């Protein structure tokens, strides 16, 4: 009889027994750590001409790392009960962590290279409780990838009780995947320059340490370059740095964002997967999503590119776990925002209200005056050419100030508060109005004289507060009052030309 019925959906029984981390971690953790120390070992062993203390030191380090891994594996246990996720760890300092499952907002799977060789993943459970910074959430490092996937579904499903309704298997919807053409935005990020700097530093360091013959030819080349006329030296140097930075940034982009895929899973979570070597999968319960932030660093903006972040509770602020879209066309950033927020068109692309001219004056003063002061000080204390250079920067400072004013804007849509600011990094944030949990209205001495205020919406998600900078006092208060009805109203009053009228208390 029952054979005719389709098989019942598999119900994943909550684990109540204590579990250990995967036994393969005994190899993986030392492996990961030894991999990071490879150059040191090379330095100690290969180039050490076989001195005994070097060998002993290396062996000692490896033994210590392996022992530490063993200790950690032996002492760490976890279990998932109906109410909470518990983890016990540590030998000398026993730590008992317990996270109530209803508080789980995000699940973050990370697999480093060593993990991936052995089919493992580290799981980080984010709660968004900010009482103790650094103690936010809990990490299981690591379990097998299948176990990780099972836990991900299990933890997020119970985190959203409404969707426990037995899953009619909806397929996951792909919202965005990596496009090869996005690689052209890689050189517009500064990651290339950073990579060049790091590479240079590392090479120099190890070359000296390992007594390699890298320096000789390099020094010769440097001497040759310096011997050329100044313009040639400069352009050669700039050219080399630019080329290396370009390649470096493309490489960094591919390593970080290779295999990028943004999906909406059947359990109503938004999931970002990325990474060529270290794979990363971050799932955010859609209920906990408070908005989207589109960021346009200056260079990227010049190429009409942007990257996007989620504004959500329960994600660590370090480690880019809130990434939604890697550097990509701005159009794609708005499209992805719209998809993720299920709102077409995206609130981040709504036309914004401009801020008053007083804000332009303020931006200008704040951009130009420090440069003027600097050149004044330099004229007093330093050689003449320094203050001339500083003075030559004034037009650029003015441009920056003007652009910062141009970036300022805000608007209120049906469900979102949208605010934009910044020039070097222009940030457009769309914050869910229901996610606003308070206000801060600040007014500096100079803002007061210009009739401006900065309105900050505080929220449990993302940065904690999002600012509408330098808005006219009346407009800003009206905006805040309309964003969250009834919160600000009792504290507002209206100033007519002759009369002060207080709003009636409800």
């Amino acid at each position, binding site marked *: 009889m029952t054979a005719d019925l389709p098989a019942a959906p598999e119900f994943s029984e909550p684990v109540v027994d204590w579990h250990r981390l995967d036994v393969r971690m005994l190899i993986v953790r030392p492996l990961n750590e030894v991999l990071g120390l490879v150059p040191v070992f090379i330095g100690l062993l290969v180039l050490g001409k076989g001195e005994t203390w070097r060998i002993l030191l290396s062996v000692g380090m490896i033994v210590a790392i392996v022992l530490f891994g063993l200790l950690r594996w032996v002492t760490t246990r976890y279990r998932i009960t109906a109410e909470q996720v518990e983890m016990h760890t540590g030998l000398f300092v026993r730590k008992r962590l317990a996270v109530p499952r209803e508080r789980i907002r995000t699940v973050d799977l990370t697999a480093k290279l060593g993990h991936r060789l052995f089919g493992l993943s580290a799981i980080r459970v984010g709660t*968004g409780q900010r009482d103790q910074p650094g103690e936010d959430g809990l990490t299981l490092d690591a379990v097998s990838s299948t176990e990780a996937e099972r836990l991900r579904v299990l933890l997020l499903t119970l985190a959203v009780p409404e969707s426990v309704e037995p899953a009619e298997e909806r397929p996951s919807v792909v919202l965005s995947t990596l496009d090869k053409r996005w690689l052209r935005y890689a050189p517009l990020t500064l990651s290339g320059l950073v990579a060049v700097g790091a590479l240079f530093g590392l090479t120099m360091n190890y070359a000296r340490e390992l007594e390699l013959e890298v320096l000789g030819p390099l020094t010769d080349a440097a001497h040759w370059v310096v011997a050329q006329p100044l313009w040639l030296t400069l352009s050669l140097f700039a050219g080399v740095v630019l080329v290396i930075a370009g390649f470096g940034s493309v490489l960094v982009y591919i390593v970080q964002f290779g295999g990028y895929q943004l999906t909406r899973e059947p359990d109503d979570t938004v999931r970002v997967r990325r990474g060529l070597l270290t794979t990363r999968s971050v799932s955010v319960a859609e209920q906990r999503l408070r908005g989207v932030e589109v960021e346009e660093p200056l260079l990227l903006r010049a190429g009409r590119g942007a990257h996007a972040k989620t504004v959500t509770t329960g994600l660590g602020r370090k480690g880019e776990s809130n990434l939604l879209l890697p550097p990509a066309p701005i159009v794609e950033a708005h499209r992805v925002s719209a998809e993720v927020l299920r709102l077409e068109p995206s609130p981040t692309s709504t*036309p914004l209200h401009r801020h008053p001219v007083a804000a332009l004056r303020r931006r200008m003063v704040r951009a130009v005056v420090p440069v003027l002061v600097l050149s004044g000080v330099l004229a007093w204390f330093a050689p003449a050419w320094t203050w001339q250079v500083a003075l030559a920067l004034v037009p650029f400072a003015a441009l920056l100030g003007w652009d910062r004013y141009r970036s300022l804007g805000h608007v209120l849509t049906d469900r979102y508060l949208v605010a934009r600011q910044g020039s070097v990094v222009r940030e457009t944030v769309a914050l869910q109005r229901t996610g606003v949990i308070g206000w801060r209205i600040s007014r500096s001495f100079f803002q007061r004289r210009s009739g401006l205020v900065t309105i900050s919406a505080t929220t449990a998600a993302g940065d904690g507060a999002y600012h509408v900078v330098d808005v006219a006092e009346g407009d800003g208060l009206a905006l805040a009052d309309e964003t969250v009805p009834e919160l600000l109203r009792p504290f507002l009053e209206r100033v007519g030309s002759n009369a002060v009228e207080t709003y009636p208390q409800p």
Partner: protein
Amino acid sequence: MHRSGNLHATLRPPVRHLPKAGLASPRARPWGTVDVVSTDQLRLRAPRHRVSRKSITLWTLHAVIGWAVLLVPQLVVLLFSRTPWQIGVAVATLAVGTAHTVVMPRWRYRVHRWEATPDAVYTLAGWLNQEWRIAPVSRIQTVDTKRGPLQQVLGLSTVTVTTASAAGPVLIEGLDHDDAVRLADELTTTTQATPGDAT
């Protein structure tokens, strides 16, 4: 007495609704912003309660300690060597420090205010730069009172109201200790009566 101004005010119908931001004829700008003609004159009213008068003493002590940290090492150096530069800097420090110590506490006392309604906590703090903070009671996570050594001597307390936001708590500095404890108790009671996890 010339009354035309007041007459104007009485003829004007009272305005009961806030104008919606953005209704006034928007004008498109090339960079995707829109002009808004501002017509309303909203402002925040001051919270109802002042902080304790003893706060002036507290802030004065804070300022004196802070400036002493800057000034005393300079004076010690002056004992051993005196250049016009060093004397100039020391005199300037003394002058600015004195002005700050005299002006800041009184200015702050005139500004600092607080209010707790059944729905929200509302504070105003600062002197040159001022900040209003509003936290709805439904979003409060913890309420603490805290007293530093100087505050204990003066019988003052700080009430700290935290929400789930990482941007920092709402602070009410310089309340009489009894008032602070009463306020914290009240807030805790109303907060506990409010369901939800405050995020």
